[in-house]
């Protein structure tokens, strides 16, 4: 066996290589870990679910409003194809959002290929590519999680997602089209993760819809299996699609009545998002006593008293 003759120059280069190899692969924040969702924002909408006819804070157009007005929640129970339909990627973090994030590296180069996420709701798994690959062509398949690519903007991760299947902006039938683009900004502050989402939808929105969600780091978190199997249990003719004909949905005025809100204000639209709109509506008269979703801070402690 030949003796290896060590050369001082090689040793120096090797040491330099080791020094680079142990440096961080990138200077940005690491989001890896188990994250527990906080529901202090939009709690009643996100946990028990939104009221029918509540389109507040949504810059929707007339098409979205009409689609939501005709929505009948029986669709979920009667139509098997809806029973296990998951949230879209833009909504899934607002639901049962126990979140796991991990990273995937190229073993040869140690460059970051992607972030992966797993969410409790519908066991949704997602890949956010960080290697600069392009988005698929327009004629490619669309999925619930869409196709995501990320770039660093300082310590903030900005993610662009396309190729999403048609889904909802709110779970009371307000639609989001398959032509929408989702932009996310992930920010970590210590043990807290904030995700700001911006949805641009040329079909149903007149301006971008901006929302935010928060998590706290919870290394001991365990995420169970969600599990769902569609099971037709309601006899129905083939092709049944529950919906309300225009002008016949009896539930659309409940929300405004229950909360003492002007009916025009709960119909949504970009104008209703801005402070100037307050001058157009009569003063808000809240109910004398809170009777609905008064203590809603987690999934299981919402006051859902009937009326």
């Amino acid at each position, binding site marked *: 066996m030949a003796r290896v003759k060590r050369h001082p120059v090689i040793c120096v280069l090797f040491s330099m290589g080791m020094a680079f190899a142990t440096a961080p692969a990138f200077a940005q924040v690491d989001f890896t870990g188990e994250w527990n969702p906080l529901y202090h924002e939009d709690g009643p909408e996100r946990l028990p679910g939104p009221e029918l006819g509540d389109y507040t804070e949504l810059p929707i157009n007339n*098409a979205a409003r009409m689609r939501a007005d005709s929505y009948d929640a029986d669709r979920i129970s009667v139509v098997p*194809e809806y029973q*296990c339909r998951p949230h879209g990627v833009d909504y899934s973090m607002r639901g049962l959002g126990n979140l796991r994030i991990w990273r995937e590296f190229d073993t040869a180069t140690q460059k970051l290929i992607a972030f992966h996420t797993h969410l409790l709701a519908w066991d949704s798994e997602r890949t956010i590519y960080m290697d600069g690959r392009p988005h698929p062509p327009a004629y*490619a398949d*669309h999925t619930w999680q869409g196709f995501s690519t990320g770039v660093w903007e300082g310590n903030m991760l900005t993610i662009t997602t396309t190729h999403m299947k048609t889904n909802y902006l709110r779970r009371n039938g307000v639609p989001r089209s398959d032509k929408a683009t989702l932009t996310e900004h992930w920010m970590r502050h210590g043990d807290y993760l904030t995700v700001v989402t911006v949805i641009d939808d040329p079909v149903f929105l007149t301006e971008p819809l901006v929302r935010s969600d928060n998590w706290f780091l919870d290394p001991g978190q365990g995420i169970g299996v969600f599990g769902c199997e569609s099971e037709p249990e309601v006899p129905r003719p083939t092709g049944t699609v529950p919906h309300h004909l225009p002008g016949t949905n009896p539930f659309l005025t409940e929300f405004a009545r229950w909360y003492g809100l002007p009916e025009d204000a709960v119909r949504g639209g970009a104008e209703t998002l801005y402070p100037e709109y307050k001058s157009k509506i009569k003063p808000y008269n809240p109910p004398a006593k809170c009777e609905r979703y008064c203590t809603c801070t987690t999934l299981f402690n919402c006051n859902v008293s009937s009326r």
Partner: protein
Amino acid sequence: MNRVLALAALTAGLIGAQEPNFQNPNFQNPNFQNIEEHILPVQGSVYMLVGAGGNTTLQVGKDGVLLVDTQFATLAPKIMAAVRTLSAMPVRYIINTNVHGEHTGGNGAIAKLGGEGAIPRIIANDHVLNRMTAPPAAGQVAVPESDWPNDEYFTPTKDFFFNGEAVVVYHMPAAHTDGDSIVFFRRSDVISTGDIFTPETYPVIDMTRGGSVQGIIDALNRIIELTVPAKYQEGGTYVIPGHGRLCEEADVVEYRDMVTIIRDRIQDLIRKGKTLDEVRAARPTLDYDTQYGGGATGPGTERFVEAVYRSLGGK
């Protein structure tokens, strides 16, 4: 066959107006010069070929090449060039999902380029053949004989085994036309739907050729019965539409819901005695127009509302 008429049809095709009597009105006059044929692997032995006109479904394997729909004759060299990147085998089968020119226009040209001595079997429902062989109306050109189906079927289904899997052709009566077929590749688990399902536009209901809104809905429900999604309504059976992007069952469900809801709304207005103008004024498709019709006054919206109205017996 009158060769002069055939040549006239071919020439018309070269300038982008092939077989105007069978042209799907949503897809007229593409600029063929700039068209590129893109191959999208779908699943198993099946690929989607995206160019102009309708999507072409491509199945390749040890037995040869099978094409569902052939776009326009002018594009045949580009289509075959794309096919040859996947297989050097001859084209053995062509299946036409309907009679319209953007699905059948390349039949003869591809048979000539891809048959390599053997004439491919061109399968279609017998209504397709009947309409292609009927004398053309005044001012219209005849369809070249080389484009005609040579293996028409008149039963509810036709099946055969090719490239290691069952290929089942289902007739979908009175839908987009009276001669619609969908093609199910059973091992690959892919369905090619033709113009019954066009996820980016309202369906074209060609009533002059036997189409109806109820037939479209029945056909969409049949496709939903055949498709089986994988976990959480995603994956599983893939669906190649007549036009537009690759889809799955959930996309067909969205589309079925749209057509069903609009049918119900217009049916309700007809029951109330509304005229077509009054139905249009009521905007029964407002919530779908931007997505499928090119806007409220888009040609797709106007045509679709009228077709549904007439199809449901509105006067």
